[in-house]
């Protein structure tokens, strides 16, 4: 249905190289692709395969001074003006293309908005830069754009700053910014990776709407095959900087040609039928020797304000959460963005003050001395949500992974090196990458470094906060396998935080669903997935995109209002939910 349409972007034989310590290295080699008007092209593939580099090359925004286009052409077609060769353009000429003809949404929504400028300013300025609209008209168009991405109270939002918006809203602002000028081409680099399923659904729906209405061509970069299936007209699969396969979405999913594509598709976790899905195990028996036990955990953040700078409001991030994790067990914590998953994890890792009890390995964390806490810490390791932010950008990744060993005085220097190299191999990196710095990796590769680091100490409990979200499915599968293998070998327990219900379904033994700081449903995987009782749980499962273009959902039901806030006035504690046992430990909150 797309081949007949005219071509808008034509990339031929694109090569991108980066300069490292030992000479240049190609990260994109000989990539050719065509994008037609109104088409959605998905680029999927291994993390680190050059997807982001390709999109940056189109925008002529490759990271300086390391990367450059070493060969190839990028041609932008235009009915009126004819072709424009983008690779030869200088900044001034490029400026007219960027935003106006080709717009881009970046992989990192958190850092891509300017923290000191209001949303309104950031929206209107690009409109004013490319059109001759008056400020008032630009403002109106900005409001329209915000409304188009379904941001409530668009007019008053203009005055807000990025840090006052949630992650999902920021990403939508980015999209609004890109779309306000009605570009011919929109490049969206992992626009939904940072978002939970419900918001992801909305954002994808939005992209589709806009494309329908405006005929924009979209390059969508993602490793989530569900998203690909949902969105793509055509798909390109990349690996090691090269294109391994190209074709219509339906064809790729139905009849994958390349071995890698098959591998990729095989690795896609599916609810109820994932490859890695393990047998349900009964772990209730071991309850007495729990690795970690959390009882009535509360975490609240005080907000200062008002006339005397007193605490007048509180974020009730975690409100009376209790659970326990047995050795060898994986407990998954799922829920919407902002529901308190990461905060729970941080409390367990000792990073935020809390009230309630956290017992690790039989010892209550509060009331431990410094040395004892260090010992306990060895047993609990955490993999953070944002891989880039959680790695010291000034250290080589090899040193970063070795650091826990150094701190706890494990192994000699030589042994350490070997252990680190082994860890690298296990997470799908090569030993020679140990010499690189975090910024020299792609998003997914960085996450693998983080995982290797957490594994270094062979802890009893690993808290994995969205650890596999940024990974492509094949690596994701490998990492999940690795996690399971370690569990078998050493009896590691996991607290697995994720918004990807398919992954959760694949790895977990038990699942806890959180909503506004409280657990609304908890039970074994089978109990929660086959018999979800709480409406919120049901909604979460429903929102998961299915990796099959044939079963594409026509329309995703939108939430009508924003997610309720966990911020409350002092004294207004949220109502405590009572969990009811529906048999065999399947706890469900009574509906309010």
């Amino acid at each position, binding site marked *: 249905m797309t081949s007949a349409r005219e071509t808008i972007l034509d990339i031929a034989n694109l090569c991108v190289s980066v300069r490292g310590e030992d000479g240049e290295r190609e990260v994109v080699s000989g990539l050719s692709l065509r994008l037609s008007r109104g088409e959605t092209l998905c680029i999927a593939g291994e993390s680190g395969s050059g997807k982001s580099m390709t999109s940056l090359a189109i925008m002529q925004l490759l990271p300086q001074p390391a990367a450059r286009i070493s060969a190839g052409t990028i041609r932008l077609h235009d009915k009126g003006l004819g072709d424009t060769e983008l690779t030869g353009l200088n*900044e001034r000429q490029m400026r007219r293309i*960027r935003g106006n003809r080709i717009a881009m949404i970046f992989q990192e929504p958190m850092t891509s908005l*300017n923290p000191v*400028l209001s949303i309104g300013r950031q929206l209107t300025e*690009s409109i004013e830069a490319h059109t001759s609209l008056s400020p008032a008209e630009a403002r109106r168009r900005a409001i329209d754009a915000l409304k188009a991405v379904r941001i409530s109270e668009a007019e008053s939002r203009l005055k807000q700053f990025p840090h006052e918006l949630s992650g999902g809203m920021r990403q939508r602002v980015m999209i609004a910014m890109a779309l306000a000028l009605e570009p011919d081409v929109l490049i969206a680099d992992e626009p939904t990776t940072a978002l939970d399923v419900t918001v992801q659904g909305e954002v994808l729906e939005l992209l589709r709407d806009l494309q329908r209405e405006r005929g924009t061509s979209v390059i969508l970069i993602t490793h989530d095959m569900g998203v690909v299936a949902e969105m793509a007209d055509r798909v390109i699969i990349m690996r090691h900087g090269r294109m391994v396969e190209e074709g219509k979405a339906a064809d790729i999913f139905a009849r994958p040609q390349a071995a890698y594509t098959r591998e990729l598709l095989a690795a896609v976790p599916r609810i109820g039928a994932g490859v890695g899905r393990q047998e349900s195990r009964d772990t209730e028996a071991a309850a007495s020797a729990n690795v970690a036990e959390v009882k009535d955990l509360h975490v609240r953040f005080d907000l200062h304000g008002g006339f005397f*700078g007193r605490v007048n409001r509180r974020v009730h991030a975690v409100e009376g959460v209790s659970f326990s994790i047995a050795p060898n067990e994986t407990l998954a914590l799922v829920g919407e963005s902002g529901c308190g998953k990461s905060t729970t994890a941080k409390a367990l890792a000792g990073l935020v003050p809390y009230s309630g009890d956290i017992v690790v390995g039989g010892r209550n964390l509060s009331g431990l001395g410094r040395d004892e806490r260090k010992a306990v810490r060895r047993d609990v390791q955490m993999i953070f949500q944002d891989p880039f932010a959680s790695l010291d950008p000034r250290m080589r990744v090899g040193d970063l992974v070795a650091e826990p060993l150094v701190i706890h005085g494990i192994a000699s220097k030589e042994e350490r090196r070997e252990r680190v190299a082994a860890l690298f191999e296990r997470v799908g990196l090569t030993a020679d990458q140990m010499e690189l710095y975090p910024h020299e990796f792609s998003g997914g590769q960085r996450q693998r470094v983080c995982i290797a680091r957490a594994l270094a100490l062979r802890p009893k409990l690993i808290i994995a906060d969205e650890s596999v979200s940024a990974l492509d499915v094949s690596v994701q599968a490998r990492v999940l396998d690795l996690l399971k293998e370690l569990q078998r070998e050493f009896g590691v327990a996991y607290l697995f935080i994720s918004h990807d219900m398919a992954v959760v379904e694949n790895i977990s033994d038990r699942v806890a669903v959180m909503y506004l700081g409280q657990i609304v449903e908890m039970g074994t995987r089978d109990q929660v997935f086959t018999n979800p009782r709480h409406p919120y749980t049901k909604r979460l499962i429903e929102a998961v995109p299915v990796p099959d273009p044939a079963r594409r959902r026509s329309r995703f039901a939108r939430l009508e209002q924003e997610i309720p806030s966990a911020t409350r006035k002092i004294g207004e504690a949220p109502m405590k939910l009572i969990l009811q046992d529906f048999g065999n430990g399947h706890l469900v909150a009574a509906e309010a």
Partner: protein
Amino acid sequence: MIAYLGRRIIQSALILLGVSLITFALLYLLPADPVRQIAGRSATPETVENIRRQLGLDQPFVVQYWHYLTSLLSGDLGRSYIQRSQVTELIVSRLPASLLLMVGAILCELAIGLTMGLIAAIKRGTATDQSLMVASFVGVSAPQFVVGLLLLYVFAVRLGWFPIGGYGTWRHLVLPSLTMGILGAGWYARMMRSSMIDVLRQDYVRTARAKGLARRAILFRHALPNAILPVIAMIGIDIGIFMGGIVVVESVFGWPGIGQLAWQAIQRVDIPIIMGVTLVSACAIVLGNLLADIIAPFIDPRIKLR
């Protein structure tokens, strides 16, 4: 905001109290005897003791400090030993000139320093960058006395654009501000360059470029406010540094500020004036820091006054 101000003012008052105590103690320990200076070379020991008693300088330290503090609270800084006038009057008559000069100097150094730093950061690694770097170091290394006289000689004596020293109109202000500003400009240029280079690497600058904004908009609207933040924090610090240079600059340009007053007082151990000027300059520094902290949230909305 008001609560914040209240807390900061109490903190500042404590700092000022500390400054007054330390200064008073140091001056008390100073071996030079102010009474001898007052009494003159022909005075008999009895006269000297008489004067000492009158000034209360025979009292123990704690009593002296307490007296100073209590009269300070009623706005009385005492009388100069040498000049015999009210210290308050002396300082009040000279303070506006010094403040004016300081404002002028800050404007100069911001204008020159930020521009230089900005250009250097944009042209990083080029000959322009290198020569700006040399220039900023010349500014920092050049003795202010020489800089002041050179400016005076060229722009006032030779070209006649500005008056040769004095006080009154804006034309009097230009050269002394410039002289003071040149030193700070060197610092600001380096700081600005460093922080600008950092900001230009940020994701949001890439976003701005991706939107196809004009170079000017990227630099001034997106990069500058982020880069200027550490520089703003410097302004408070600056006032303290200025206090050192103000003596020289004020004397070269015949600027009737408190620098000269302080200098003469130090030379002659005129303790009430030294105390007064110290407290006033401490006030200025504390206020400068407060101001820098108050401005910051306007530039970066993430910063909360706490």
